[in-house]
Structure formats: structure tokens, C-alpha cells
């Protein structure tokens, strides 16, 4: 059949084409049964495209032999916008980058500007940032587990994870009034102090989740079908993962302990006692389990942070509305829920950044998606995309 496709149909060779199509003995006696490759357009509007990913799959039966992703459907020119805004005006935009874990984005941006302008952040603000970043990580990982469960076909766990995430969003809402795009972190500190009784509620939630997360582990990760579906699927070695620039939980699941909180410590993380979770196989199952384990570590950090939380101001003194950092460059990064999230800012001494480059972990992780998922079954390819957990606000920026 491939011969026919190559032949261009024109009047001159139509007769030839007909002859080709005509039944003759030589074609019948071809030694193998050849099946055609099916080219499938996946997305950009697809129930499990995690946003607006478009990909072209080549299918040989149920096996995906080739993946070509197309991105850019959510490109909102944030890097260009940043050049036209003052430093503090760009702050709210960062929340829209990775909208599932916007606390980290705001923090990374604020950290870079603080580095650039030499602003010292008060200790209480650092602790508050840690507390909210870790809550945000838990919320993001819960969302990940929920969507993964749904993609694997288990519809009920979705609601359990969302129930827990909802409780975190309530805590956030009480704090800053927003549920998704908080704009809580400010250059030099944070925008609001804790309301009365917030810490008690937060501790109650932490104690609750510590118990329930173990139940969810049993329900979803320990299930026979789920294990059968995930174990050994789309494995990735450490070398390939590094070569493809994967960071965050997918990289750690291959055994590389690359966690910015430990490898390039920032804020008050050096004072916290927690483990960088690593797994060995780098398959889908490890990529899912590592999230669940990180939730447990985050709970550990949260308990310590709440215990150690000092009194004091929540924002640095004398931070002007229009920050005018000296000319220069700065790079700072945090460990977001998805990986190494960095901001690279070039300043020319004016009140607006000259260039803001955002290093989104989703962008880097999604890049490896074809390399990881090619050769897997169609159902597993969708799951593999899910385990990389891309957020398209961050991929396209």
C-alpha cells in the first residue's frame, strides 16, 4: 500500500495506478501481512491533554510508534509583557504561569528580584513563604494524583484527592482571598499575615492528611490493576533523563537526588529536616508514587515550619513601589511542584526589567515526552503524559 501513497495521482499515471490496484497474483503472495500505520491527531482539545497540547501519534495497532508534540496554544507572551511592566507590576502575571502551583512562581520571581536589588527578606516572611510553598506543593501533587487516577480509569479517587485539595484552598482563601492565583508573595516579603486561628486549622489539616494519605496510598497506588497498569511502563534511565533535561519528581524517580531545596538551598530550607525522595526505576509507577511520598515529606516540613515560625515583620522595610535595581543579571530558582523553576532577569537600571526569561520545568519535562513514551500502548502514552504532569500555562508561558 505504501507504494500507492507515494505515487502522485495525475491523469498520466492514473492508468498505472489502476493497474497497481488491480488484483494480481504477485500481490497476493507477499510474505507478510502488513498493517497500515494510523496517524492520530491528539488534542489540542482532548479530555486528557492536560490543557492544550496537540500531538501527532503514529499508531501501529495500539502501539504508538512516533509522537510529535506541538505547543504554543496558550502562548501569552509573558516574557514580552514583563519588559513593559515595572518589577512589581509583573508579580501577578507569575501566578498565571503554572496556575496549579502559583505560590512557587511568585516566590521564584520575587527571589530573583530580591537578589538583583539586594533586598533582605525578614525571617517571618521566609517562614510564611515556606509554609505556603509546601501547602502549594501538596495541593499540586494531590491534583496530580487525582488526574492520574482519572486517566487510569478510577473515577472515585479523583474526588477524595480534590476534597483534600479543597481544604488547602480554603486555607489559602482565608489568607489572601484567592483560591488559584494568589499574588501572595511580594518582592521583599509576603502580602498578608496569618489570620486568627489559621495555624490551628492548618495543623488540624496536616494531622488529618497524614492519616488519610496512607489510606489513599492503599486505595490507589496499592491496587492490583493500577500496579499492573503502571509498573515497568515507559521507564527512563537516569542518563537519558538528564540528557533530556528533566527535573523535579520525574528526574528524582530515576534515582538522581536533584532537589533545589537541598542542592542549592534557599530561604530557611537548610533548617528543615526532610528527605529528598528518590526512586530507582523511573517508570510510570515510580513517577506516581514519588508524588505521594513527597506529600509526606512536605507535611514533615510544614510541621517544623509552623513550630519554628518566629514573630516579626512580614515585609522588608523600605522596599519602594518602583524598585530600581542596579544594572546586572540575576538567576534564582526554587523547587516547584514540577521541578526546577527559575527566573533569569536582566536589568538595565530602569524600573522595568530588560529581559525576563522563565525556566519552566513543564517545558523541559514535556520535551522528553516523545522520548519516554514512544513504543508504549496508546493508553499508557496518555498516562505517561500525565505522570510528567505538564501545566500548559508554564509550557507556553
Amino acid at each position, binding site marked *: 500500500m505504501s507504494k500507492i501513497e507515494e505515487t502522485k495521482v495525475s491523469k498520466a499515471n492514473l492508468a498505472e495506478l489502476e493497474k497497481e490496484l488491480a488484483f494480481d497474483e504477485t500481490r497476493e503472495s507477499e510474505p507478510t501481512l502488513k498493517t497500515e500505520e494510523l496517524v492520530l491527531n491528539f488534542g489540542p482539545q482532548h479530555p486528557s491533554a492536560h490543557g492544550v497540547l496537540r500531538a501527532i501519534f503514529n499508531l501501529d495497532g495500539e502501539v504508538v510508534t512516533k509522537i510529535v508534540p506541538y505547543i504554543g496554544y496558550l502562548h501569552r507572551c509573558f516574557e514580552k509583557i514583563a519588559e513593559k511592566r515595572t518589577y512589581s507590576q509583573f508579580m501577578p502575571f507569575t501566578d498565571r504561569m503554572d496556575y496549579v502551583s502559583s505560590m512557587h512562581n511568585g516566590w521564584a520571581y520575587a527571589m530573583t528580584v530580591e537578589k538583583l536589588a539586594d533586598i533582605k527578606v525578614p525571617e517571618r516572611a521566609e517562614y510564611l513563604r515556606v509554609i505556603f510553598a509546601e501547602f502549594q506543593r501538596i495541593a499540586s501533587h494531590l491534583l496530580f494524583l487525582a488526574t492520574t487516577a482519572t486517566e*487510569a*480509569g478510577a473515577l*472515585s479517587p479523583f474526588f477524595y484527592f480534590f476534597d483534600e485539595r479543597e481544604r488547602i484552598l480554603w486555607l489559602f482563601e482565608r489568607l489572601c482571598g484567592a483560591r488559584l492565583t494568589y499574588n501572595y508573595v511580594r518582592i521583599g516579603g509576603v502580602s498578608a499575615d496569618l489570620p486568627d486561628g489559621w495555624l490551628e486549622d492548618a495543623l488540624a489539616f496536616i494531622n488529618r492528611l497524614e492519616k488519610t494519605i496512607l489510606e489513599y496510598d492503599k486505595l490507589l497506588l496499592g491496587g492490583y*490493576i493500577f500496579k499492573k*497498569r503502571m509498573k515497568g511502563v515507559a521507564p527512563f534511565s537516569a542518563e537519558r533523563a538528564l540528557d533530556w533535561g528533566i527535573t523535579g519528581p520525574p528526574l528524582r524517580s530515576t534515582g538522581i537526588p536533584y532537589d533545589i531545596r537541598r542542592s542549592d538551598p534557599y530561604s530557611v530550607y537548610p533548617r528543615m529536616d526532610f528527605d529528598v525522595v528518590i526512586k530507582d526505576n523511573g517508570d510510570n509507577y515510580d513517577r506516581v508514587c514519588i508524588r505521594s511520598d513527597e506529600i509526606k515529606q512536605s507535611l514533615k516540613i510544614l510541621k517544623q515550619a509552623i513550630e519554628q515560625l518566629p514573630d516579626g515583620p512580614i515585609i522588608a522595610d523600605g522596599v519602594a513601589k518602583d524598585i530600581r535595581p542596579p544594572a546586572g543579571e540575576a538567576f534564582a530558582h526554587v523547587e516547584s511542584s514540577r521541578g526546577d523553576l527559575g527566573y533569569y532577569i536582566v536589568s538595565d537600571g530602569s524600573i522595568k526589567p530588560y529581559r525576563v526569561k522563565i525556566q519552566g520545568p513543564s517545558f523541559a519535562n514535556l520535551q522528553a515526552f516523545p522520548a519516554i513514551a514512544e513504543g508504549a500502548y496508546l*493508553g499508557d502514552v496518555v498516562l505517561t503524559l500525565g505522570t510528567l504532569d505538564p501545566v500548559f500555562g508554564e509550557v507556553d508561558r
Partner: protein
Amino acid sequence: MLSSSSLLQFASHNGMPIWVLNTSIALIMSLVVFALCGLGVLILVYMERKVAADMQLRWGPMHVGWHGVLQLIADSVKLLSKEDIFPRNADRWIFRLAPVLVFLPAFIGLMVMPIGPHLVVQDLNVGLLYVLAVPAIGVAGVIMAGFGSYNKYAILGSLRSAAQMVSYEVPRALSILGVVMIAGSAKLTAIVGTQHAWYIFLQPIGFVVFLVSTLAETNRVPFDLPETESELVNGYHTEYSGTRFLFFLFGEYIALIAGSALAVVLFLGGWHGPGPEFLAPVWFLIKMFAIIYLAMWIRWTLPRFRIDQVMDLGWKVLLPLALLNVLITGLIMVL
């Protein structure tokens, strides 16, 4: 036929030929079954939504009527009045015929189901084969839906569905064989009649194989590969909307009813139960809904298999198990 002596007398008294009597009784009975099916599907959809909601920390439909009991009527009206979207390149006749071909065989398959000692539309000698064979025509409808939609997701869905249904037909038919051997008849009423001890106790392996392959035949989780929304959007009925979609929904739920009813007839003692005879249909329905609840419970708890795992389970686990069951049953009966 149901033509009892009094009816025959009435007919001959009024000069009505027997065939007119027979035909009209058959027509009325199928209309009754049709109406019951419609009601049953409404109840099932409501039940499914409530069961799902209960397992997912939700309320489910609450606003239309008491606890949302009228929600399904509202939904049906909505679906019936929706625009009928027709893909431009769709194969006209195949696209139109497919929903009917999915729905009708499932419905006709119910005609031989005995829900009481004499409550059966048509008691065939080969009733058991009939309930296996006729709903199997529905697979053709599913394939037609996939082919006619001119949509690759639909084609993939229907290919999966065909592979799955054809594969699971084999262990399903073989798992029943043990029951037929014990009962000594393929007549459904005879199977229930001889079933004083439930066959589930005599045929535990057969029951498990039958239940699993019935779940696979009705495309329910963990075997809902033909319509996995995470990969294939909606599988073979991706392109269907409005009334045509309603037909698919009906076909699916009627298949579930038929499968559960068959499980009750074959393994759970059919209409047998304590109390007077007029309670027989009640017992039957209670058992049937228990099986349906089990299917829903499974659906809202488990993730789904991958296509190769589904095939492996069918051919490498269930088929040998079913054959083993036949062998064991035969050996015990001979010895």
C-alpha cells in the same frame, strides 16, 4: 406462547383465528417489555448516579423532584430535543443504523428471560443460546458506529470493542456450559426449575468467569476500553448526539440488565425465594439489582486495564478456567 386455555376459548368464541391471537399477544408482550426496559434504564441510570455520588463524597442529582428522581426524565427530554449532529463525511446509512443495531439486539435478547414461573414472553428450547447469540449482533452495531462516524477515535474504539467482545464471548459461553450440563437443558425456565440449590455453589468457577466476561461484554470498568475518555475521547459514540446517543445509552444499560438477569437465572436461583409464588418476580428483581449494584461498585472503584491485558485475561486466564470448569463438571457428573 402464553395462550392459555381460557384465552383460546375466548378466541374461538369470538371467531378469532389462533395466529391473530398469538401475534397480538406477542406484540403486547414486547411492548410491555419495552416499556419495562425504558423504566428499568431510567432506574438504573438514577441508581448509577446515586451510587457513584455516594462513593465519591457527593450528593448526585438533588434538585429535580424528591432527591432528584425526576432528573433522568429531564435529561431524557434534553437528549431527545438536542440537535442531531451529523458529521460531514460520515457514511449516512451506517451512521444512522448503528444506534438501532446496538439497541435492538440487546432488547430482543431480553424476550426469553423468565422472571417468574410463567412470566416469560417466549420460552425457547434453545433459550440459553438465544440470549448469548442475539445480543452478540450488537457488536456489529458498535463496529458500524465506529466506521460510519469517519473519526479515528471512533474507529479505534470500535476495533477495541470488537476484539474485546469476540474474545470474551468464548469464555462466557463456555462458563455457562457447566450449568447446562447439570440442568440437562438449554431452556431457561428448565434451568431455573431444576435449580433448588443455587448453581453458584455448584459452579463457583463458572460464576466468576461468567461475571467477569459479562462485565467485559457490557463494556464496563475495568473493561471499558472501547470508550476510555482519557485516550479515545468517547470511543465509538464520539460523534453521536441527541437521540442517537440515547440509543447507545439504552443499549448499554439494557445489556447490563440482560447480563445481570442471566446471571440470576443461571447461578442465583432465578425467581426462587421464600414466600408465596406471586413474590417470585420480586425475588428475581432483588437478585438482579444486587448483581447490578456489584457491577456499579466495581465500576466506581477500580481503574481500567490496558487493551493487551484485557486480551491476556480473556484468552490466557478466563478461557482455561472455563474449560477447566467444564472438565471438572463433566468428571464429577460421570463419577
